[in-house]
């Protein structure tokens, strides 16, 4: 990674509404993530966190009904997913997809060339990948296996983090990267992410639980309930949530349980 002083990449979500099959999931989201910042987006299941992550990346099946998503000042909602990725966005998936017959190294090399341009030599790529593998303590055998095929839950998530490390995006969204992991796997994944956090990377960490924040200290914490960000604050908000739980916060803010609006 080079430490040159360039303009800070910014992801801005403005007044975003989105639906799935006619049902509105996001009801007006405003959120700004700058390169170098770490934001935790927390909320109960079904609050729309993952929808936000997927809409930003352009997953098919979601309809944006209002609002915009700007990246480096450009509205990216009209761009294809691969164009968004080439501009410097990354989404670590909640459920990484198996791609049979395509090895991790082949997949990564193709992705790296797509993002960095054709001028990358095979040797330079190898060296770059190896460096990231060493950093994340990923063994050689993993990258010659087919993408996510036969991977354990922990391996799948570590593979996501390896991709994040190799592809060097400016803003990465981590969609429940901590979910479904035992404590050892969580530690491996979270310390991996922690090593990548720095001035060149902005992170939007989408999570249900506070436990990953034991390894990664967020600059900002946002709480999302029923398709809205209902509270934002600093690192202390996560601790508060951990103590109170979503239920108490909901009551405190006067939010009805079944998708009702705030009073």
């Amino acid at each position: 990674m080079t430490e040159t002083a360039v303009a800070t990449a910014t992801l801005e979500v403005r007044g975003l509404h989105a639906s799935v099959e006619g049902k509105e999931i996001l009801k007006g989201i405003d959120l700004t993530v700058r390169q170098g910042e770490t934001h935790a987006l927390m909320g109960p299941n079904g609050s729309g966190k993952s929808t936000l992550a997927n809409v930003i990346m352009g997953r098919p099946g979601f309809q944006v009904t209002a609002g915009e998503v700007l990246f480096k000042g450009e509205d990216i909602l009209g761009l294809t997913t691969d164009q968004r990725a080439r501009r410097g966005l990354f989404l670590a998936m909640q459920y990484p997809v198996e791609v049979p017959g395509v090895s991790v190294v082949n997949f990564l090399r193709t992705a790296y060339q797509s993002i960095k341009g054709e001028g990358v030599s095979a040797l330079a790529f190898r060296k770059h990948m190896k460096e990231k593998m060493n950093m994340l303590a990923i063994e050689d055998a993993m990258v010659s296996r087919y993408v996510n095929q036969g991977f354990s839950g922990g391996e799948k998530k570590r593979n996501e983090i390896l991709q994040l490390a190799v592809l060097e995006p400016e803003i990465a969204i981590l969609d429940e990267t901590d979910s479904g992991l035992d404590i050892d796997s969580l530690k491996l994944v979270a310390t991996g992410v922690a090593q990548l956090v720095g001035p060149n990377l902005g992170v939007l960490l989408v999570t249900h639980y506070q436990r990953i924040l034991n390894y990664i200290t967020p600059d900002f914490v946002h709480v999302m309930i029923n398709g809205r960000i209902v509270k934002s604050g600093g690192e202390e908000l996560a601790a508060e949530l951990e103590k109170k739980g979503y239920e108490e916060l909901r009551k405190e803010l006067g939010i009805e349980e079944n998708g009702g609006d705030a009073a």
Partner: protein
Amino acid sequence: MEPATKVQGFDEEALSALSSSTLFVEALRKQALEEFLALPIPSQETEEWRYTDLSDLDLSFAPFAPGGDAESLNRGKILQAAGVVGERAGLQIQRNSEVVSTQLTEGLGAKGVIFGDLDRAAEEHPELVEPHLHALVPTSRTKFTALHGAFRTGGTFLYVPPAVTVELPLQTLTYLDADGAAVFPHTLIVVGQDAEVTFIDRYVSPALSRALSVGITEIHAGAASRVRYVSIQEWGDGVTHLGVQRARTGRDTELRTVAIGFGASLARAEAETELAEPGGFSEMLGVFFADGTQHFDHRSLQDHVAPNCKSDLLYKGALKGESRAVYSGWVHVRPDAQKTDAMQTSRNIVLSDRAKADAIPNLEIEANDVRCGHAASVGPVEEEQVFYLQSRGIRRDEAERLIVFGFFQEVLDRITLEEVRDSVSHAIEQELAGEG
């Protein structure tokens, strides 16, 4: 391009123009011609021919097309058309209806290996040819196998004596460039006990206005032998390909076959293994890629006759354009075939909404202590996979290309011959790059 001879169609007069190497062959031809004339063109009303309509097939093909003399034969050009030919223990080239060249590594002959023109083998080794020719695929099987029996010329005979291991593959290249001709490639392989051999059949032609190939492969694999057989069908447009391959395994035989189909306008390829003795193993791999208006009809049979045998079939195909492919596979477990372990898998990836694929598995189980399974799928490239690759910056077309390659990789990983793997990869690459 060689013009085909003036004679067209298949009757007694046409047959009388062909020479027969032995009385045995002559009798076979006569009987087969009778069968041909008596049998109807297979009807789509039968289960076997439901997916392929040949009722309009005009049989006015030339029954014989010369291979050309040594001077007119441009062997280099033919080999070039066949792609890379790796190191071989033996190579035979048949051009149109005639074998034009046969080579066998010195030393193999001394070990008793016989490799060459089937007609010559019928003359020189009747004791090996007569009990085996059309023993697995009788001429009376269909109108087309009868036609083959009557009009076959050329062909390949391979015999590997007991306990002989042939390290390098042997190959026959069948090259067709006579427009309007019918050819009848026949490969007869007899492998002795505990012997080992790899054989590659490759069928190549340029695009023709019309031609017919009715091919038969018969593999007699002796006890504890290890036999690998690869067929690569790369006929040009305009060719109708009707192929039947049948193998019989002995006790503890290990047979691995690969059927690769990229060419022809219409290709029907049947592959069958009869596990006739205990302890046999049969692996049947298939790879095909259809484009344009190609029609592929693939059929397979894992015929478990004896107990304690294992068979494992995996066919993978991709379709583009307006192509059509049907795979129908049978696993037949006969009453004595206890402890059978049979698996049959067919996967199809459809890359165009104008293309259509079907996969039809059939199990017929007459024994009660067996393990049988089948899996079949037909579908487009999975959008989840495309999205995943796109989210890493990979463009959609490149993502699809990677996914299709990955799809075939499962079969490629099981093909032991590197040059065959490479040549299949190359063919897939070309199919993906081509229009429609």
